[in-house]
C-alpha cells in the first residue's frame, strides 16, 4: 500500500488522514471543553447539567462503534503535540469566558492547585507504593515558608516559591530518610504522625502566627504589574484572579511535563520496581534507598510549589487549612483518578474539587462524601476511573508509515 512508486496518491492519502486526525482532535477537545464549562457553570439542576450529561451518554453509545473509536485513538496517538497545544489554547480562554464570575475562576484555580499536589502524591502513592498521609504538611510547609519569607522583608514571591521548593524538598527528605526501613502500615503511621506534629507545631508556635495564622501576604509582582490588580489584555478587563489562573496554568503544565518525563525515565521505572517487589529490585542492583529518597523529595516539591502559590493567592493562611482531612482528600483524589496515571489524576482532581462546590447544600457532609467515595471506588473500581497503563517499550523507533 505504501509503495514509493505511487507517490501522488500516497501523498493525498496521508494528507487526508492527517486532516481527519486534526479535525477529530479539534472536535473532541471542543466537546470536552464545552462539557467542562457547562459542568462548572451549572447551578443546581438546569440545562447546563443536561448539556454536560448528554455527551457522556453519547460517549457510551458511540463506544461500541469500532471505526470511530479507532479513529479517535489513532488521532490522539499520532498528533499528540497538536492535541496538547490545542487544549492549552482552549484553557487560555477560560478567564475570558468567566470574566464576570470570579467564583468559577476560583474553582478552576483551586482545582489546579490540588492537581499539582495530587501529582506529587501520585509519585509516592501511585508509582512507588508509599501511602503518605503527610501531603497536607508538605502543602503547609510550602505555604508557610513562602509567607514568612515575604511578609516582613522585601523578598518577592519568586524567591518565596524557590525557597518553598527547597525547604519542602528537605522536609520530604527528612521524612523519607526516617522511614527507609518501615514498610506498609508502619510508613503510613509515621506519615500520619508527621502530619499531626506539623499541624500541632504550626498551631502553637508564636513564630508561625499561632492559630490565627499569617495574614496580609503580599501579592506577586512582575515588573510593575501586581497580581492583585486586574489584568488588561487586548482591551478586555479581566478580574485579578485571571493573573493567578495563568500562573497556576503555567505551573500545572510544568508539573504535568515533569511528572510525565519522570514516569518515562529510568527513575520512574525504579519507582515502579520498588512498588512491585522491593527485594527483587534490590537483587537487580537498583538502589532502593536512593529511589525512595528521590520519590519523597520530588513528591514534596510539588506540594511546596502549590503551597506557596496558595499562600499568595488567598493572602491569608491558618493551620486549619492543613489538616489530616486534606491529606485524606488528596489520597481520595489519587485513588479515584487512578493510581500512577496522570490523566486519571487530572480527572480526579477536577471532579473532586468541582463536585463538592456544586452540592453546596450538602456542605456539612463533605468529609462523609469523600469517605463514601473512597469506599465505593475501592469496592467497584479498585484501579480507579482510568486504570493504570501498561508500559510500552519502543525498542526500535518505528512508525507505521515508513518501511
Amino acid at each position: 500500500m505504501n509503495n514509493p512508486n505511487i507517490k501522488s496518491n500516497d501523498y493525498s492519502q496521508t494528507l487526508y488522514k492527517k486532516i481527519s486526525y486534526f479535525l477529530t482532535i479539534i472536535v473532541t477537545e471542543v466537546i470536552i471543553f464545552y462539557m467542562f464549562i457547562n459542568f462548572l457553570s451549572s447551578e443546581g439542576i438546569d440545562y447546563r447539567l443536561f448539556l454536560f450529561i448528554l455527551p457522556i451518554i453519547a460517549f457510551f453509545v458511540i463506544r461500541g462503534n469500532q471505526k470511530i473509536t479507532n479513529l479517535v485513538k489513532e488521532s490522539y496517538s499520532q498528533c499528540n503535540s497538536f492535541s496538547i497545544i490545542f487544549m492549552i489554547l482552549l484553557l487560555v480562554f477560560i478567564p475570558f469566558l468567566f470574566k464576570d464570575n470570579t467564583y468559577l475562576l476560583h474553582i478552576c484555580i483551586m482545582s489546579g492547585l490540588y492537581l499539582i499536589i495530587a501529582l506529587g502524591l501520585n509519585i509516592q502513592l501511585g508509582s512507588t507504593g508509599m501511602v503518605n498521609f503527610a501531603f497536607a504538611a508538605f502543602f503547609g510547609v510550602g505555604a508557610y515558608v513562602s509567607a514568612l519569607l515575604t511578609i516582613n522583608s522585601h523578598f518577592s514571591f519568586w524567591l518565596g516559591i524557590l525557597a518553598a521548593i527547597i525547604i519542602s524538598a528537605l522536609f520530604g527528605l527528612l521524612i523519607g530518610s526516617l522511614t527507609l526501613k518501615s514498610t506498609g502500615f508502619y510508613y503510613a503511621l509515621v506519615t500520619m504522625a508527621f502530619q499531626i506534629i506539623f499541624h500541632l507545631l504550626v498551631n502553637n508556635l508564636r513564630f508561625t502566627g499561632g492559630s490565627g495564622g499569617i495574614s496580609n501576604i503580599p501579592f506577586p509582582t512582575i515588573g510593575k504589574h501586581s497580581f492583585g490588580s486586574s489584568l488588561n489584555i487586548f482591551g478586555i478587563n479581566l478580574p485579578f484572579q485571571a493573573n493567578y489562573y495563568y500562573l497556576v496554568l503555567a505551573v500545572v503544565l510544568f508539573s504535568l511535563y515533569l511528572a510525565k518525563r519522570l514516569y518515562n525515565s529510568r527513575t520512574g521505572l525504579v519507582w515502579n520496581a520498588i512498588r512491585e517487589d522491593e527485594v527483587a529490585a534490590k537483587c537487580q542492583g537498583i538502589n532502593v534507598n536512593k529511589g525512595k529518597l528521590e520519590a519523597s523529595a520530588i513528591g514534596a516539591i510539588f506540594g511546596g510549589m502549590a503551597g506557596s502559590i496558595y499562600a499568595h493567592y488567598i493572602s491569608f493562611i491558618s493551620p486549619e487549612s492543613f489538616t489530616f482531612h486534606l491529606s485524606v482528600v488528596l489520597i481520595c483524589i489519587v485513588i479515584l483518578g487512578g493510581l500512577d496515571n496522570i490523566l486519571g489524576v487530572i480527572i480526579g482532581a477536577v471532579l473532586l474539587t468541582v463536585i463538592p462546590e456544586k452540592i453546596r447544600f450538602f456542605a456539612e457532609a463533605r468529609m462523609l462524601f469523600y469517605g463514601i467515595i473512597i469506599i465505593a471506588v475501592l469496592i467497584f473500581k479498585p484501579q480507579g476511573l482510568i486504570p493504570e497503563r501498561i508500559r510500552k517499550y519502543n525498542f526500535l523507533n518505528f512508525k507505521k508509515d515508513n518501511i
Partner: protein
Amino acid sequence: MVLVINQVITGLMLGIMYALIASGFSLLFGVLNVVQFAHADVCFLGAFVSMAVMTFLSKIEFFPTWLVIFLTIIFAVIITGIIGTIIEKICVKPFRKSPGLIILLSTVAVGFIIREGIKIFYPSGASPKFFPLSFPQWAFSMGGITVRFSNIMIIVIAGMIYFLLSLFINKTKIGLQIRATSQNVEAAQVLGIDLDKIFMITFFLASTIGAVAGILNGMYYNIVKFDMGLMGGIIGFSAAVMGGLGNIYGAIIGGLILGIVESFTMAFVPGGSPYKEIFAFIVVVLFLLFKPSGILGKKVIEKV
C-alpha cells in the same frame, strides 16, 4: 518525688485507656491481618451509643438507676459490637484477598464516615457533649500521693477485661479457633474452621472491648466529642505499633509508655500541654527507627 509518683499514677491510667484501644488494633491485626483504622472511632461511637441508650432507658419510669446504668453498658457494648461486624461485612470482606493497604484506606474512610455521621445525625453533634455517667469523686491521699477512685476503678476494670479476654482465647473452643487462625490462616481453613465466622467474632470482640474503652474514656473526662476518634485512633495505632502489632501484651506496654510520656510532658515540660502529643509521637518515631517491628513484635526479615 511525690509529684513524679502522682504523674506516674495518672500516666498509668491514661496508658491503660490507650492500651484498651490499642489491644483492639493488635487483636485485629494479629488474628486477621487487618488494620482497622476506624477502631477508635468505633470505641467513641460506643460512648455516643451509650448516651443514646441511656436517654432512651431513663424514659422508662420503673427502672431504678443502677439497673439503667447496668443495662446501658450492656446494650451499648452489644450494639457497638454489632456495628463492628457490619463494618467488617461492608468494608473488609470484599478486600480479603487484596493487599493490606487497601483495607487501611477503606477503614480510614469508614472512620470519616462514622465521625461525620455522628456530627450530622446526632442532635447538635458538632459540640462536645456531657457524658452522664461518671465516677464517684472519692480520693485518698497518703503523704501527698493522691489516688483517686477513678484511677483505681479504671485499672481494675481494664484488668478484668484482659482477664476475661485471655480466658476466652485460651480456654474456649472458639478461642482455640481464633488462635489457630492467627497462626496460619490457610491451615485453619483446611482444618474446617469457618473463616467468615472467625472474622465476625473477632470484630465483635474487638469492638466490644473498644466500646468499654470509649465508655471509660467518657466517664473519666466527662465530655465526648465526635472528633476524639481521630486523635484516639492515631495514638492507639501508634501504641499498638510501638508494642508490636499482633501482640496484645505489646499493645498494653505501648499504651502504658505513651500514657506515661504524655502525663510527664504535661507536668514537667513548661508550657508543654499542647505539645504532649508531639512528644508521644516523637517517642513512637524513635522507637520505629530503631526497632521497626515494635517492642514485642515478630522480626520480619525478607530474605530470598
